[in-house]
């Protein structure tokens, strides 16, 4: 009845050597332990895997061929595929920067600028508005609803609306600018101004997500940290840089990464507003142009662009996450 001490337990500590017969047991044990988790995850793995991995593999294969609309197999029309494997030719052509293949490097640079500027504004404005909204005041809920609104409007509707507003001759924006004596640029013309215009639209579209995410982040910073800082004599600016920004780090690092990825691949805004305008061409819209225009749709080049986009983003994410980690380690 009275428990005994187990000082002798030490000799039992060493797990016995496992015989070969135990291997099957281990597998079963593994399944016993985790099958529930795998059962929960399985549908997603099947759906996402099936609809991403298979097509991706096929897409990567396409990049080594000269496949296009004219030579792709068509089971419905009973047409056999007759494209050829061309090795690395697509990559060489694209990476040569030849204008015939979309001036890859120039467009990559523009894409980077586009992503960088957009995300910087998303974050900056989003944070500013979040800080404003994080104060007690009248109409807070109303402001919040109004400010999130652009997120709720389908992107293609917003794109059309902005194209309408940006009309150089009859658009409301230039009418307003003109009526207060400001210059009225051709917003969507074939000039770098068009890039400014699409950035404005994309910023307008993307700020609400950032704002909401950062507002959430702000609310999860414990208030006593601010109190402690205030007692330590920190100025409002110091409180912002020493408490708010570090406190937002987990939020920021995620939304910035996602923001860059999303913006990098942001297709509808540019395509619906400026169409095939060389001054707003980014990698994804060029891939789409190759995909949807041309006498015969060039799936090979479009896929090559796709793989390159993915590679660029993977490199970016790798560098970003590593930088984040090393910063955290400090």
């Amino acid at each position: 009845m009275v428990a005994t001490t187990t000082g002798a337990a030490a000799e039992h500590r060493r797990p016995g050597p496992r015989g070969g017969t135990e291997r099957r047991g281990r597998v079963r044990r593994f399944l016993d332990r985790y099958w529930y988790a795998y059962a929960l995850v399985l549908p997603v793995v099947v759906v996402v895997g099936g609809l991403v991995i298979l097509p991706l593999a096929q897409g990567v294969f396409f990049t080594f061929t000269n496949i296009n609309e004219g030579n792709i197999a068509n089971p419905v029309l009973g047409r056999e595929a007759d494209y050829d494997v061309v090795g690395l030719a697509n990559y060489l052509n694209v990476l040569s920067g030849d204008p015939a293949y979309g001036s890859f490097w120039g467009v990559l640079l523009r894409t980077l600028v586009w992503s960088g500027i957009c995300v910087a504004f998303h974050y900056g404005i989003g944070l500013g508005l979040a800080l404003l909204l994080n104060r007690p005041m009248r109409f807070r809920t109303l402001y919040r609803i109004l400010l999130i609104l652009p997120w709720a409007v389908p992107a293609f509707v917003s794109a059309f609306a902005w194209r309408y507003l940006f009309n150089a001759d009859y658009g409301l924006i230039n009418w307003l600018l003109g009526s207060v004596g400001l210059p009225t640029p051709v917003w969507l013309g074939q000039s770098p101004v068009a890039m400014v215009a699409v950035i404005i639209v994309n910023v307008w579209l993307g700020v609400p997500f950032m704002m909401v995410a950062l507002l959430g982040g702000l609310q999860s910073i414990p208030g006593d940290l601010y109190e402690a800082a205030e007692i330590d004599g920190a100025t409002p600016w110091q409180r912002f840089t020493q408490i708010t920004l570090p406190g937002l780090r987990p939020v920021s690092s995620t939304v910035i990464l996602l923001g860059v990825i999303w913006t990098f691949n942001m297709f509808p805004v540019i395509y619906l507003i400026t169409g095939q305008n060389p001054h707003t061409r980014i990698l994804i819209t060029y891939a789409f142009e190759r995909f949807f225009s041309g006498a015969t749709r060039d799936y090979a080049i479009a896929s090559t662009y796709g793989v390159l986009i993915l590679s660029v983003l993977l490199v970016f994410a790798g560098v970003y996450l590593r930088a984040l980690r090393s910063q955290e380690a400090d």
Partner: protein
Amino acid sequence: MDVTSLQTSGRAGPSGGRRPAPPRSGHRGRRSPAASFGLHAALVVASLIAVFPVFWVLVTSFKPDSRAIEASPSLINESSLDNYARILAGEKGDFLAWFGNSLLIAGLTTVLAVMLAASTGYAVSRFNFPGGRGLLFFFLVVQMFPFAVLIVPLYNLLLSLGLQGSAGGLVLVYCTTAVPFCTYMLKGYFDGIPREIDEAGRMDGLSPFGVFWRLMLPLARPGLAVTGFYAFITAWGEVAFASAFLSAADQSKTLAVGLQVFVQQNRTEWGHLAAASILVAIPAAVVFYLVQRFLVSGLAAGSVKG
């Protein structure tokens, strides 16, 4: 590369342990009138910018196409409800069918994506199973997939599955983009719910699935609302896949595809387009309104922790 560096430690969840952060400090005293004015002025300006394009679409939606482009913009110019009447009457294509398709597709995407993401997010959050982190990283990578690589192979895949041109095929495609983000968000949310709740549930006699269904899902409602909103908006406004996969028949189009009939290089029917846009925005706005109070808290506990 390690996704887990995105995973910061869980915070106290909605079960009460969390001390709600007091609003930004420094307001024990009242704001000065000037500061108050500045604050409101900034927010009013920002709100105007946020709302104005939508407002102007509303204004335009009442104008006839031939008056929508005016030398000097006016609020009212031969405005009437004609555009709406014609659109709803189906004179401009089978608008109601498009609407129904969009609702069906966005609705199914929302339900399916949230269910899949919830179960996955829960599994990754609670069961430290081999491959769980890999899965999260995989999801991050999926976010990076440009559709340009996938659109043709996906087309072929759906064709061979007999899903090309069907709403079901598009729902599956949308899920592949919505599920990863939703999983991230919900995993973060589940991380914030104390494990003791699960354990208490199991002590009370729930199976693990019962815990998920009867405790986790109700508790994660804000997170579910936000992910649902995200999935809905994504599916509701998607253009590229819908154009490629659902343009075969007028009856099967979604709004995003159908509305393109109003926007052509050489003849944009701005009045009709605007009216249709307003009709399109209404369900999105309703969904938005239903979940907006969850947005901040849901995102706070969810995605942002990543």
